[in-house]
């Protein structure tokens, strides 16, 4: 079981752990003696914290800088103990430590009482979703083991925990320095009837993997190792909740594709027919639907997750730069990664005293804020109150994880950044008296965006060039906008920082200028999905578009105007496109 130890700086977290390791005989032979000898050599008093504060800087400054992990074993079970730093400067290290824990020990100094980070850490536990908490009032030796001091701090802190909806399982008085009530109680604390820290740890309950909930299988990747002679196409990932069996009908969101599980795959394992929450596994499907890493696989017969692009969330910000509006960030939720914007800050909370401020426009470092986020594409998610694993996310700013948050609600809204952008543009666009109809008449054509899409490497670029040439030779005003495919790299690759949506947005804006000027614009984009297409079309409005799909149709629902299966006969394909454009009156066949 993994336990994080947290609390204000200098309240003795590392000492509590050091003592726990020493008193349960969990240290390697000679380690205690070594550290004691080292202290003697350097003429400094020995502290149990030195057993954990392993970095030279930490020992020099006497504080924990980064979370350390150590292992120990009680008579009941094995523990992974995470020692988190208490200094505000290292809050992100505390978060990293706490986020992987199943339960927490929060340490408060009996002499100093409840401090800023005692509260801040308490609040963050509630946000991180840690429900099992033990509060240890340490350094009781400094207050002569006075029960009054213990009771006062307990009352203060209980009141605070009540506000953040955490129920502490235990409040324990201890002195880690003197080894009182860590592994055993001593006469000094004869008045205290409760368990020792060790006994209390053993009473925490290990939460079972959520196999009984609905299936949430975030698709981490789709493997096909054809070059090694393996033809399986394996949809891989770790199941967060629920279970999946061979024969289950499954749905991928947000794309909406459907298929059925054919096999459950594994290596060095007997044949399996099912997999469940907690397992990193893989399945093959009966129908080879086109899906991307980042989608959420769910069972078609179970409650679906939310799918939307506006989310009301609670964010904790760790970035050096504040989180601001009109700046593009990346959001990672389960296996999905998508560009995101801060739409609105509703109110900001100071977690150290629970005061709120509803007039803020941005989120500063260490703030907790309730706000609305907008992703550029719909995202499949759950409310964190329903399924924690698919209801929480991190925000990336400039390559770094700068914030973490939980989803409070899905927001249904008719307006979004793209429609707002189009409205604004239409308002500010100073149009002359030459109407689109005037231009159509002069140019013998009705402008349109010809979008060639489909999988990569099908020869769309060559088709576009040949189409441009043919139309040009026929006297049309036509332009092929040859954007390099590298600009449009698929954003399913976690590594590239998702510039694709920004390029597509520009493409939409540029298309609008060409079509507004009366031209036929030809563009190719590989791997376009429904939402990306919708964005480009919206930005090109009020002008027309003509969607040609070459090769496999990767869209879920989007309506295409012309399907071309192969480009073996390019001249025929071009004629087909021309005929279709003529039929829609984009190419006018008569002269006035």
């Amino acid at each position, binding site marked *: 079981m993994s336990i994080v130890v947290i609390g204000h700086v200098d309240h003795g977290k590392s000492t509590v752990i050091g003592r726990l390791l020493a008193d349960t005989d969990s240290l390697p032979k000679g380690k205690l003696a070594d550290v004691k000898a080292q202290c003697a050599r350097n003429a400094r008093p020995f502290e149990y914290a030195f057993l954990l504060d*392993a970095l030279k800087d930490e020992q020099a400054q006497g504080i924990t800088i980064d979370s350390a992990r150590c292992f120990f074993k009680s008579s009941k079970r094995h523990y992974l103990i995470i020692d988190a730093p208490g200094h505000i400067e*290292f809050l992100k290290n505390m978060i990293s430590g706490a986020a992987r824990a199943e339960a927490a020990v929060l340490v408060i100094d009996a002499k100093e009482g409840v401090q800023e980070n005692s509260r801040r850490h308490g609040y963050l536990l509630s946000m991180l979703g840690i429900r099992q908490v033990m509060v240890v009032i340490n350094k009781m030796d400094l207050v002569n083991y006075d029960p009054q001091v213990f009771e006062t701090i307990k009352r203060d802190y209980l009141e605070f925990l009540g506000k953040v909806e955490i129920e502490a399982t235990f409040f324990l008085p201890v002195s880690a320095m003197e080894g009182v009530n860590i592994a055993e109680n001593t006469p000094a604390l004869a008045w205290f009837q409760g368990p020792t820290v060790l006994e209390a740890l053993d009473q925490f309950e290990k939460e079972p993997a959520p196999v009984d909930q609905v299936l949430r299988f975030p698709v981490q990747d789709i493997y096909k190792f054809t070059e090694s002679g393996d033809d399986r196409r394996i949809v891989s990932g770790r199941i967060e909740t629920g279970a999946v069996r061979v024969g289950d009908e499954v749905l991928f969101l947000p794309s909406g594709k459907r298929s059925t599980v054919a096999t459950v795959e594994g*290596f060095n394992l007997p044949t399996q027919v099912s997999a469940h929450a907690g397992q990193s596994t893989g399945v093959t499907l009966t129908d080879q639907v086109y899906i991307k890493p980042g989608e959420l696989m769910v069972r078609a017969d179970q409650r679906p997750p939310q799918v939307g692009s506006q989310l009301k969330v609670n964010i904790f910000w760790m970035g050096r730069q504040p989180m601001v509006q009109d700046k593009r960030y990346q959001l990672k939720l389960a296996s999905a990664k998508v560009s995101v914007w801060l739409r609105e800050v509703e109110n900001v909370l100071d977690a150290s005293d629970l005061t709120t401020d509803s007039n803020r426009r941005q989120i500063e470092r260490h703030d907790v804020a309730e706000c609305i986020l907008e992703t550029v594409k719909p995202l499949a998610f759950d409310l964190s109150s329903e399924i924690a694993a698919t209801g929480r996310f991190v925000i990336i700013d400039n390559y770094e994880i700068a914030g973490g948050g939980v989803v409070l609600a899905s927001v249904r809204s008719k307006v979004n950044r793209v429609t707002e952008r189009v409205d604004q543009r239409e308002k500010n666009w100073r149009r002359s008296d030459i109407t689109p109809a005037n231009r159509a008449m002069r140019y013998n054509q009705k402008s349109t965006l010809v979008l060639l899409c489909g999988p990569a490497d099908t020869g769309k670029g060559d088709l576009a060039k040949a189409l441009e040439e043919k139309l040009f030779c026929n006297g049309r005003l036509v332009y092929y906008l040859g954007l390099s495919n590298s600009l449009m790299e698929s954003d399913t690759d976690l*590594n590239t920082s998702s510039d694709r949506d920004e390029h597509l947005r520009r493409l939409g804006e540029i298309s609008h200028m060409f079509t507004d000027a009366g031209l036929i614009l030809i563009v190719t984009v590989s791997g376009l999905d429904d939402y990306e297409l919708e964005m480009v079309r919206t930005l090109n409005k009020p002008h027309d578009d003509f969607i040609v799909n070459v090769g496999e149709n990767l869209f879920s629902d989007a309506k295409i105007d012309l399907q071309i299966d192969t480009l073996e006969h390019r001249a025929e394909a071009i004629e087909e496109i021309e005929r279709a454009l003529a039929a829609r009156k984009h190419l006018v066949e008569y002269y006035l």
Partner: protein
Amino acid sequence: MDQLEIIESQSIFILREAYRGFKQLVMLWSIGKDSTVLLWLARKAFFGHVPFPLVHIDTSYKIPEMIEYRDRFAREWKINMVLGRNERALAEKQTYPDGNATRLECCRLLKSEALKHTLSGEWPRWILNHETGEYDRTEGGEPYTGVIVGARSDEEGSRSKERYFSPRDRHNDWDVGDQPPELWNQFKTDFAPGTHVRIHPLLDWTELNIWEYIERENIPIIDLYFDKGKGERYRSLGCAPCTSSVRSCSTRVQDIVGELRSGKFSNIAERSGREQDKEDGGGLESLRLDGYM
């Protein structure tokens, strides 16, 4: 799920996350038990395949059986095997066995330096040619930006502070005070040009877990870990001159599990047979800052 299943699942998740996030990804294989377990986990994660190269830094002082074992499994498991070495230090005999360097300097030259320049592509790489069975020397490879390493938290102090995904800058430096946050299994897979990331899928494993897993999965581990009748075996593998054996009559994996669980090694640090550790007051921190694994 039992403890081994939980840490196995987490390691597989991390390996897949690394494979998704990094185009120039490699795994370091020291031939020891930890990185061999890591290699096995990669085959689990990718359903029998190892879809990235394995790098081994050859100091030329490795115990000979290690090299034999490496090449046998590299061939059997169709691994894209890459070797790196510090040709110059070896030619100039700047080593501890030659009497021209301390143990730590020797480690730095033959391991840290060789590793750094092999990863960056500045020094030649020797790549296993599966047709001839020989290693072909190549010059000027692409720098590797994601490096998978078998470090465990319980090995020594500074390793307990590592992240699963831990960035190194241009100079291979590890800024321990300012590591990126990791929460809810979201790791640092975005990185600025010129930096690279070390990936540690075994961070939550203990030495005992490693052996329990070898036993459960029946992983063909190198037999230097077993007693062959002399009443001694290796507990940790490195270069012959700096690695000593321990007294033990364990001839099978289950004997070793027993020794670690409750027997003679249940509370003796694993690296006690590694002499170079004792020269550095700060544990391995100085070497780690310098890129040592």
